[in-house]
């Protein structure tokens, strides 16, 4: 069985599948990108109703800096130091961008309790320290590796990946960060339903989970996670989307294309 892959910004890819882009199985950055497909009738509403919740792996939001950490970036406040340029993708097209901005939002707003404090941080960050608008997590990484910016907000697994490629970077997990959960779903119009489902199920097996862990992703299987504990240090406080009320309420409130609190801040700052 051959698997062909198409990579792109999560939001962009999701909209494309709705528009007819052929796909058998999808793996997006954020749950709303799957929900869009459920609404369009391409994914069964039961996709996340089993115990795994459709999430075979995840990561945490991490800060990638130049080797040696010349600007001593350790925590979210360090990003607001004068002269620090931050690279993070645009939440209008990228799913990973949403996790990236939710992490400081959650930590500054104490899990959503003080919304204004969270939004104030994001306003300062995006308005004064983000100068570029890469369309996807990968484009953001590329931009950073080519020399732009002092800090890249990214997934821990992306950071591990580029470090393993030998690039001159290192990563720092801030004490308070966000748990990234990446959903996988089978597209019900797929011509290879049984094979796609088999692949999806494999992702949850011990073997599959080990492969995820070896690639730098945090596995969800507790036994495998224990084996790889040294690769994945536990942060002081790990916020989750559940703490903020779930994607169902967070996505429209913060990331709606027209009125989302964070998207409006972003659009105002970047035109």
């Amino acid at each position, binding site marked *: 069985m051959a698997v*062909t892959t*198409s*990579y792109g910004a999560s939001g962009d890819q999701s909209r494309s599948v709705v*528009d007819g*882009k*052929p796909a058998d199985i999808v793996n997006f950055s954020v749950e709303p990108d799957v929900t869009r497909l459920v609404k369009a009738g391409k994914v069964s509403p039961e996709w996340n109703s089993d115990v795994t919740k459709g999430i075979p792996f995840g990561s945490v939001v991490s800060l990638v800096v130049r080797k040696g950490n010349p600007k001593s970036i350790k925590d979210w406040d360090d990003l607001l130091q004068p002269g620090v340029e931050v690279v993070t993708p645009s939440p209008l097209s990228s799913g990973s961008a949403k996790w990236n901005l939710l992490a400081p939002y959650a930590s500054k707003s104490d899990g959503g309790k003080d919304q204004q404090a969270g939004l104030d941080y994001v306003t300062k960050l995006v308005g004064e320290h983000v100068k570029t608008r890469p369309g996807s997590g*990968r484009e953001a990484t*590329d931009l950073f590796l080519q020399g732009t910016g002092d800090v890249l907000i990214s997934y821990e697994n992306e950071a591990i990946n580029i470090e393993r*490629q030998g690039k001159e970077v290192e990563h720092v997990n801030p004490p308070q960060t966000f748990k990234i959960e990446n959903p996988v779903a089978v597209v019900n119009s797929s011509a290879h339903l049984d094979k796609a489902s088999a692949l999806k199920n494999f992702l949850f097996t011990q073997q599959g989970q080990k492969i995820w862990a070896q690639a730098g992703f945090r596995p969800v299987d507790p036994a495998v996670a224990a084996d790889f504990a040294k690769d994945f240090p536990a942060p002081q406080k790990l916020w989750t989307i559940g703490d903020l009320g779930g994607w169902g309420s967070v996505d429209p409130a913060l990331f709606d294309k027209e009125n989302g609190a964070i998207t409006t801040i972003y659009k105002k700052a970047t035109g």
Partner: protein
Amino acid sequence: MILSPVARFVTRYLALGYVLILVAVPVGLILWRTFAPGFGAFVASITTPAALSALQVSLLVVAIVVPLNVIFGVPTALLLARKRFRGKGALQAIVDLPFAVSPVVVGVALILLWGSSGVLGFADNLGFKIIFGLPGIVLASIFVTVPFVIREVEPVLHELGTDQEEAAATLGANWWQTFWKITLPSIRWGLTYGIVLTVARTLGEYGAVIMVSSNLPGKSQTLTLLVSDRYNRGSEYGAYAISTLLMMVAVLVLVAQTVLEARRGKAKS
């Protein structure tokens, strides 16, 4: 105008220097980076399954675009070279239009026309995928290559005049015989030149294709999309290798162009 030896020296080496630094040096660098690890590495990189599929997709697109451009382009050229009619100027302008359109705009135009929420979006709902399918790439490629065959054949037809065809007509040939035996051979070098340009442009199209393609290896990933895909995944050498392959194609195109120019020159005299 006779230039002093100094002036001649300066102009010559200024011009050469410009061309060398702008064109030759960067191109040479890519060739160096591609072949430094050895010819074997190059061959391995351009014969991976993804590379071979990309080659297949690109060639398939060319195989569709060229005949269409010839079948519709030659009659259009005949029309523009030989006939007078109302709106001829407009038709001329439309033929030249693609030169003024950015590739990204071509992609946007096709998405807005054939995409699922576009003007002709019903085609998509009927299951006939244009955007994200091969037809989208074909339509984008035809858009940008429309001018080539027409613009290369038209002046040839114009210069040749209708003497021979009229002679054939008086001898009793029907229009198909006249076309096949007289017209077509007389335009063959111009037509070939136009086809060569079409092939080069189709193989090299990127901006429009990246907008309308689903970029799935084996189905809708062309050679140019493979270059950017490999670069984005961090396999720089792979990107260089395919680029060198495409450069070789470009060089072949240039050689063909030079040969055809010479033949055209001979045919004219």
